[in-house]
């Protein structure tokens, strides 16, 4: 066990070093080509991700981390159970949309409204995820396809609702009215960081405990490791799948609600889609091989890259597109890792005929 853990750590460490090295090399080459001053860009990057006056940029990074980690936790629960739910974006949008609308329309004491809205958002995310599960189990639409396709209708439903019936016409933008100010998540004292990150911290702790210590998490993981095995030993695989999807979707919905109450205070068309929170979350999970406790670190890493890139653009005039290239390098790195793992497992299967 001990040596296994060490090996794992060493493996993770090498892969992180490898990631950092490949990113550095590509960045260096790009900057040389763009003629940007390397040292200045680097300090701009570090400052943009972790610095700023009274660490304001670090707080921005943390705020972004919260959303990315939330989405990462959401997909991690599905992926570990062998469910390729890539509909996190739709579930996130469903949550954000419902949270804003409920808060706008529901009268009552602010705290009650806030909690009911968050609850409604989680329910909406769960339902949207369940829909893709139902499509798979009862209509035979593969989850990978169904969950992806379900991203689009909810996004356009959202666009319609805030463009027409619930539009804040005065603002001139495609967005809803503000949610009541009393429901806004408070900032940490003396900062511009809202307490939404605490919700995500709780969700992360829940996910880690769930994955490692509960019967449900154990069964879900067996299904993820080998669906045929799970079926043969009589695990209730359909129920497991639906419950896990609901859990995933609820967390995505929670992230949507946090974006509304903590950051934007309304639903703005595209606010949850354009920053690619859901997709970044998927990449963050794959990068660490779905190991629960590493997911928050991985999410922070990606958030830092994005805010750092913005800082680089401000100080060194390096185009933000460089950051996109960086992300692409990381995605490539992840893809090679994942395919490497797949190759290794199929190799195991091939040699498994004779049982080494």
């Amino acid at each position, binding site marked *: 066990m001990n040596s296994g853990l060490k090996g794992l750590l060493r493996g993770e460490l090498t892969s992180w070093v490898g990631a950092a090295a490949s990113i550095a090399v590509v960045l260096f080459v790009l900057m040389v080509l763009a003629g940007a001053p390397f040292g200045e860009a680097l300090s701009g990057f570090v400052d943009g991700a972790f610095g700023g006056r009274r660490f304001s940029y670090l707080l921005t990074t943390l705020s972004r981390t919260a959303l990315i980690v939330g989405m990462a936790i959401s997909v991690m629960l599905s992926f570990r159970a062998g469910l390729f739910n890539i509909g996190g974006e739709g579930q996130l949008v469903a949550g954000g949309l419902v949270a804003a609308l409920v808060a706008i329309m529901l009268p009552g004491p602010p705290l009650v409204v806030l909690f009911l809205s968050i609850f409604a958002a989680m329910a909406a995310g769960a339902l949207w995820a369940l829909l893709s599960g139902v499509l798979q189990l009862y209509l035979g639409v593969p989850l990978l396809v169904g969950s992806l396709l379900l991203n689009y209708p909810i996004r356009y439903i959202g666009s319609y609702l805030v463009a027409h019936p619930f539009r804040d016409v005065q603002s001139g933008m495609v967005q809803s009215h503000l949610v009541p100010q009393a429901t806004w998540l408070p900032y940490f004292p003396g900062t511009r960081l809202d307490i939404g990150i605490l919700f995500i911290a709780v969700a992360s702790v829940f996910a880690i405990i769930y994955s490692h210590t509960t019967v449900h998490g154990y069964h879900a993981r067996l299904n993820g490791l080998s669906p045929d*095995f*799970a079926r043969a030993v*009589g695990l*209730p695989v359909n129920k497991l799948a639906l419950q896990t999807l609901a859990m995933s979707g609820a967390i995505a919905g929670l992230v949507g609600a946090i974006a509304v109450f903590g950051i934007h205070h309304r639903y703005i068309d595209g606010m949850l889609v354009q920053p690619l929170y859901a997709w970044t979350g998927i990449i963050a999970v794959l990068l660490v091989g779905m190991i629960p406790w590493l997911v928050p670190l991985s999410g922070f890493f990606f958030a830092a890259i994005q805010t750092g890139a913005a800082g680089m653009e401000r100080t060194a005039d390096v185009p933000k597109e460089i950051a996109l290239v960086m992300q692409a390098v990381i995605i490539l790195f992840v893809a090679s890792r994942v395919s490497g793992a797949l190759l290794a497992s199929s190799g195991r299967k091939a040699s498994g005929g004779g*049982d080494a």
Partner: protein
Amino acid sequence: MHVALSGITVRFGALTAVDDVSLAITPGEIHAIVGENGAGKSTLMNALFGLVEPAAGAISIDGTVRRWTSPRGAIAAGLGMVHQHFMLQEEMTVLENIVLCSEPVGRFGFVDFAAAHRRLKESADSHGIVIGLDRVVGDLSVGERQVVEILKVLYCEAEVLILDEPTSVLTPQEKDRLFAILKSFRAAGKAIVLITHKLDEVMEIADRVSVMRGGRLIASGRRAETSKEEIARGIIGGELPAARQRRPRAPGEVVLSVDKLVAAGRGMAVGPITLSMRAGEIVGIAGVSGNGQAELVQALTGLRPSISGAITLCGVRIEALDVERRRQAGMSYIPEDRQRVGLALGATVAENANAGRDDRAAFSRGPFLNRAAMTRFARSLIERYRIRVGGASARASTMSGGNKQKLVVGRELARATPLVIAENPTWGVDIGAIDFIHGELMRMRDEGHAVLLVSTELDEILALSDRILVMYAGRLAGEVARDEASRERIGEMMTSRAVDALPEVA
């Protein structure tokens, strides 16, 4: 063509799969290489054929040292290999498959199929091989596909023919046909290497026998100068397990009754099948792989929906229940594929051992796992079934095939259900594990459980079963009582209708 291997050593990481083996292959001889799974016999031949690169040693042909790093070189040198898993294009015809990669190019660069057809027909006829060259491979039986593989090797004018476990997929009759072809090759002066673990076949056909164990060559000599017992001792490195004593036992109550069960199969429905099983008997289902056994087992366990018919287990109708409820009704299942279905290889031994346990309260506290209890249970299985593994928290993938299978068998038998379904329970495991698993199945029978043994190994069926059912083309082709069972009789049932269905081949 004389082939000599000298000092061949193959390593896979820390494991030495073949350890300093020297061997001579002589023309006009059938040379059997025997040993347990993992003894290194396939690896040795893969090294000869250029599929793995030896870490040390040399291959010489007719006295000249040769080297190649891919099968291409080996084929050019006159070697041919028929693998355990066939490598054929299902959509293409026999002829197209055979000429693949060495097509006879006619004028203008077109493939001259007519010439190839003539040439093949000639060499096939000279060895008494009958096969329709224009049939599509997808329509052929397993035995016929093997003939196609052999023709492929023949077409490349191989002088040395290596066959890896060629009879494992054949009926006794198909095996006889194969051996007739091999004898004809021998008469034509070709050298034949037969990798096998079946000693009866060795005694029947081989001229020379080499025994491998743990990567080393234990013995090599003329078959006439040795005996089956001596070879067997060489294979396992000790004395043979004592023959099993069979306690006479009157069957008890009906445990399982299947009435006109029909299940969806690949291309055709399997069934209707009617059978019943009583407590304290082992019912063997014999048959060539792919005749509906897998579908029947899946329909019984609930992994495949049944189309019609009734299944009653211990008085409960179960055909509409899901897997979990069927297991609770009194069924355990040892699947054929331990790598995918029997175990979750990425999970630990403890996690595998506790999956599918009926008494969930024994390893959980509320919604949480009781890891200590899970480990205790896994340790008890490890001890009772003598599983060799690093510990309860080792990954299942770290175990050898035999130990993996023991874990599956242990997990399922520990549930002590009235019905045990065992599907090729000893496939690919070593003799020690086979003996142990057979012993456990017999113990279950003696304790009054009903055991449904589905196996493509006729020896296994004959050794354990109280009654034998034979499956052919999705149906039960017949039933034989233990006392009346013989290889020939069962072999006929395994193919009786094959003759009707495919007259042009027989």
